[in-house]
């Protein structure tokens, strides 16, 4: 594994696949087709984009000017919640989408769904980090533009992800939209099951703990 890190082409391949995310921005249909079918994307690049997305989300808290964004009350901030706010829905989306499309002739594999979704996140760090820096050089009136651009980056990412799913599963537009909605439902179902699971586990654990306590009292 470390042998690969010493080779030069490993890096050139990594940067090429990372650079491809920019091509995907302007040519989503073509780009996402090539991403899996021509193997232009890579796990390393997808992980990098995800990392940058999470990083942008965290940096924004500290480095966006208080003129644009409500100041953060650091005592109440749990950084893991912020990381999870991106990673957890992403995981649900990937698993849910793969689980559903696999049953209905989806051509994409789990890994491909992951790579494509991460590539779809590109607009977020690409917009948010420059916005964050620029926010320190504007007044409150000029700040109106920021909310708009911020929303555009989210909508852009959303559209990219939906288009990506259509391309890697080789779905028509109608089927793609149908499965996007179905995936959202699948995410809700998974959240529900997870919650039921957690509450049952915690009750089960609490039961044995109380038995243990009872025994300790008696002895």
């Amino acid at each position, binding site marked *: 594994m470390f042998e690969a890190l010493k080779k030069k082409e490993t890096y050139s391949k990594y940067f090429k696949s990372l650079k491809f995310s920019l091509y995907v921005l302007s040519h989503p249909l073509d780009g996402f087709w090539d991403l899996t079918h021509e193997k232009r994307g890579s796990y390393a690049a997808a992980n990098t984009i995800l990392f940058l997305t999470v990083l942008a989300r965290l940096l924004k808290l500290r480095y966006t000017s*208080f*003129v644009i964004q409500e*100041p953060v009350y650091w005592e109440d901030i749990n950084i893991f919640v912020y990381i999870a706010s991106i990673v957890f829905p992403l995981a649900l989306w990937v698993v849910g989408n793969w689980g559903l499309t696999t049953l209905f002739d989806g051509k994409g594999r789990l890994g491909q769904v992951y790579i494509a979704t991460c590539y779809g996140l590109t607009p977020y760090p690409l917009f948010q980090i420059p916005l964050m820096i620029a926010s320190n050089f504007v007044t*409150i009136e000029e700040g109106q533009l920021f909310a708009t651009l911020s929303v555009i980056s989210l909508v852009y990412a959303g559209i990219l992800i939906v288009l990506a799913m259509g391309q890697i599963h080789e779905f028509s537009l109608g089927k793609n939209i149908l499965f996007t909605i179905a995936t959202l439902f699948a995410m809700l179902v998974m959240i529900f099951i997870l919650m039921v699971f957690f509450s049952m586990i915690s009750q089960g654990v609490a039961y044995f703990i109380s038995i243990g306590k009872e025994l300790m009292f008696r002895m």
Partner: protein
Amino acid sequence: MKNKIIKIGAMAASAVMLATSIPAVATAAESNYSYIYDYWGDVQEMPDAYNVCDVFTSSDLGLDTMLKNPDGMYVRDNMIYICDTGNNRIVILERTGKDSIELVKTVDKIKGSSINTLSGPTDIAVSEEGNIFIADKGNSRILKLDSEFNYILEFGKPDDQALTADQAFLPNKIVIDTAERVYCIATGINRGLIKYEADATFSGFIGATKVVYNFGEYLKKKFASQEQLARMESFVPTEYDNIYMDNEGFIYTVTDATTEEDLKAEKGDAVRKLNLLGNDILVRNGEWPIYGDLYMGAGGGYSGPSQFADITVLDNDIFICLDKNRGRLFGYDDQGNMVYIFGGNGNMDGYFRMPSAIDHMGNDLIVLDSLDNSLTLFIPTEFGQLVYTAMEQFDIGEYEASGQAWEEVMKLDGNYTLAYIGIGRSLLRQKQYGEAMDYFDLKYDADNYSKAFQQYRKKWVEKNIAIIVIVILAVFLIPLGIGKINQIKREIDKEEFFNK
């Protein structure tokens, strides 16, 4: 012998315990006396803005009959007029020194009227000419008397279709303007303030609060039966509880009838400032809405929002609301920023049992307690006086002096938000934008920060315009130049002449 030693030991131990516990309690009470809410809504202790100068009980004032549920108070110059509601009389006091208030006289008879006694007077006001106005609630009239309590005229029930014939007219609180027009709050009349001309003619209602209801409630009303309707609350404007007219002629009103939900949703106002048309012009630029305590949960036996019983406005436009729920005084400046909060319920000096009225004499505050039957006189501390000086200096345009006063305030309380913003605003006026930005940044004042930053940026651009132009030109011209050079190179390469 052994028993004795144990006894002495126990006594010593309890003495030590007492000695340590008493100061601890005392400091705890003191430190919570004044506080303020910071940017985050956290309670921050602050130095006292006011000290109790003295508390005057009925016997201190030399009254033969104790005050009984006094409800209204008015201050003009050095004179304090108190409506001794329970005893149907007016008590006139004079402040003779910094910490002395003396009885001038008590009045329970008026001359020249068919009904020559008062019945539960609830408020009093005195005009510049010395005419005395009394809300004689039990007799359904507002009296206008001269300074010797001779009857001049009376203001009766307004002649308006909105009031049914059998509805009692109960004038509760009054203010008068410089032309001796009377504005009155009457119990049970929720159409705003009743306005009378100086000749006692009724001239209309002003300043009724907006009726707020949502669509869901409206639908519910549409489909409810008669019995259900009777049980439901009706959509009526809230009644005001007290009024005060400031020296510019604006009327401040307070009400305690708004619910916690309405206040938090900004549907109801605890405090309003009415102009002559009855529109609310209170400036609410502060970090927190003007309804007293932010936390309304139960604690110490009290719950719900602050219930303002009275309000007074200092000459520097700071208004102070009196909360009868938790016995606190809330000071706000003319922008709606919180300035100080102090007081509480209790029996010690500076605490109240049922405060009913507040007024000011200069910057000194006088609070009337209707259950304790006492007057509490507050005088500003060094800290309070510095805050006032800083604000007043800023208002008259002495920005540098204002900034210096705020620096002094900051020495006494390094946590005081207004001091930072005050210094910042003073620096902003002195065109020291960079320094001003630092102060606004510390207290998250985005509006002022933006103002300072805009100027700072402008100055920076003006100073560095040459560099900016060079950089921009460089960004455009260098690629252009490189392209040009390459082109020439290519042409040279193509040229037969050089390739021979």
